[in-house]
């Protein structure tokens, strides 16, 4: 596996499956009384978060600690970045202290790719602007495979903000790698120009009407609602919140209709949820919802990612030998 995890597209199908298998073992550890593995003893992992985060940052921190790495959190606020230090100087200062991995969240798309060119440490993208969030896609894939098994040919409908969502971009790339059949629904104002050619190139279906996407074809196996990102929306992308809910929210009537078609449909959301906006409380708390499973998978998947990036030598397969 490569040294960095910058994009979900960096991973081959075999690598994804290997990470998901490792995550399953890590998930077992999470249920034990002693949640500690010695695999990353003596390694240092820095979480460098220039944007707000609860679940991603805490799950990376817990993942590192349970693998016995020393993990240190640095946030944009309260670091030298707020005194005007450049990103380059900040990461070079930190890596000068001999760290093994940098987990980075930044508001600029491509920030992690840029950092990866400056440093020797492994760089893990924990969300860069509106670009990618590969570990979120991995934990979503893990949650789906735990319930559905192989994702080949499974129908996944992703609903929401196509323009700003990094979760969407990483999920799309990873789901295509795993052979899922992806339909994307977004209001026209949240669909970037060039979405048409993009969908043809990457092989996903594009819809502007949620009901057509959900009920027009075979019933979906997974419905993933994306968060309406108010912090990235300065303009008027839709007239009122109410209008968004009516057109693109997973409301109670839609959930009932979905369940009538497929009782086992999985409802997913990367969090944090805007209850009553993109997802109703009934949908979020229904038996079909795996939203808390996604959070729980977050730690196991990040342990698996740290393991594969930081342990072992590069390349080659393992020779079967004596025991």
């Amino acid at each position: 596996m490569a040294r960095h995890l910058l994009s979900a597209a960096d991973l081959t199908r075999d690598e994804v499956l290997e990470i998901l298998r490792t995550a399953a073992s890590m998930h077992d550890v999470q249920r034990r009384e002693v949640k500690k593995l010695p695999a990353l003893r003596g390694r240092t992992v820095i979480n460098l978060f220039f944007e707000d985060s609860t679940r991603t940052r805490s799950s990376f921190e817990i993942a590192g600690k349970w693998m016995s790495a020393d993990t240190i959190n640095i946030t944009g606020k309260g670091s030298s970045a707020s005194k005007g230090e450049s990103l380059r100087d900040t990461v070079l200062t930190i890596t000068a202290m001999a760290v093994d991995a940098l987990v980075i969240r930044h508001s600029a798309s491509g920030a992690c790719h840029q950092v990866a060119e400056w440093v020797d440490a492994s760089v893990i993208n924990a969300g860069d602007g509106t670009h990618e969030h590969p570990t979120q896609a991995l934990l979503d894939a893990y949650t789906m495979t735990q319930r559905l098994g192989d994702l080949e040919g499974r129908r996944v409908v992703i609903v929401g903000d196509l323009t700003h969502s990094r979760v969407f971009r990483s999920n799309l790339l990873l789901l295509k790698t795993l052979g899922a059949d992806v339909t994307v629904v977004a209001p026209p104002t949240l669909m970037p120009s060039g979405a048409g050619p993009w969908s043809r190139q990457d092989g996903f279906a594009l819809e502007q009407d949620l009901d057509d996407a959900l009920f027009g074809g075979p019933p979906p196996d997974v419905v993933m609602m994306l968060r309406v990102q108010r912090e990235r929306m300065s303009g008027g992308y839709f007239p009122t919140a109410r209008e968004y809910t009516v057109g693109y929210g997973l409301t109670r009537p839609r959930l009932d209709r979905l369940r009538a078609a497929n009782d086992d449909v999985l409802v997913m959301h990367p969090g944090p949820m805007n209850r009553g906006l993109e997802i109703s409380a009934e949908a979020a708390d229904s038996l079909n919802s795996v939203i808390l499973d996604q959070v729980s998978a977050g730690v196991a998947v990040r342990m698996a990612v740290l393991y594969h990036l930081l342990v072992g030598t590069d390349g080659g397969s393992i020779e079967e030998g004596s025991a």
Partner: protein
Amino acid sequence: MAPDREVPKGHPVDPTGRVVLGPDEIARALRRIAHEILESNRGAADLVLLGIPSRGVALAQRLAALIEEVEGTQVPVGSLDITLHRDDLHRHPTRAPMRTVIPESGVDDKVVVLVDDVLYSGRTVRAALDALSDLGRPRAVRLAVLVDRGHRELPIRADHVGKNLPTSHSEKVQVRLQAHDGIEDSVRIAPGESHVGGR
């Protein structure tokens, strides 16, 4: 208990290898080990068999079946993956760890018998003892192996041994089990460097 990762079926056997144990000898050795375990434990009470993946698990299941034949008691069987506890983790390419499965009854205050196919440097067993201590506190831990090939690098010995097999470092010991590899049970010695504490 089904293996959770695709174990390549029918690992090729080295044609230059010579067979040192055939299916009948392996069956007899396992039967003797089952009796020894029962004898030293004075019955099957509180026994837990933990196989070290992957062939140790197949052996543990066979030992449990043999013990049940003799005592009429079902002994809980589990698997104990040691990948993350290895001391040479940073010297090999990574591989996904295999599942650790601990029986419902747990390991606290039990007599745990670790089961593996080949005992060599002892480093695998050292890792298994570490992994086990994270899972609970057994009353006692014993070690049963099909083959002891010598060359220990740590102060570790087996309680129950199917066959002592003097070898040199420049030889490989290959164990093949019907339940795991889909080919006839055998233990072979073939020329070729073995990985100490290998995989």
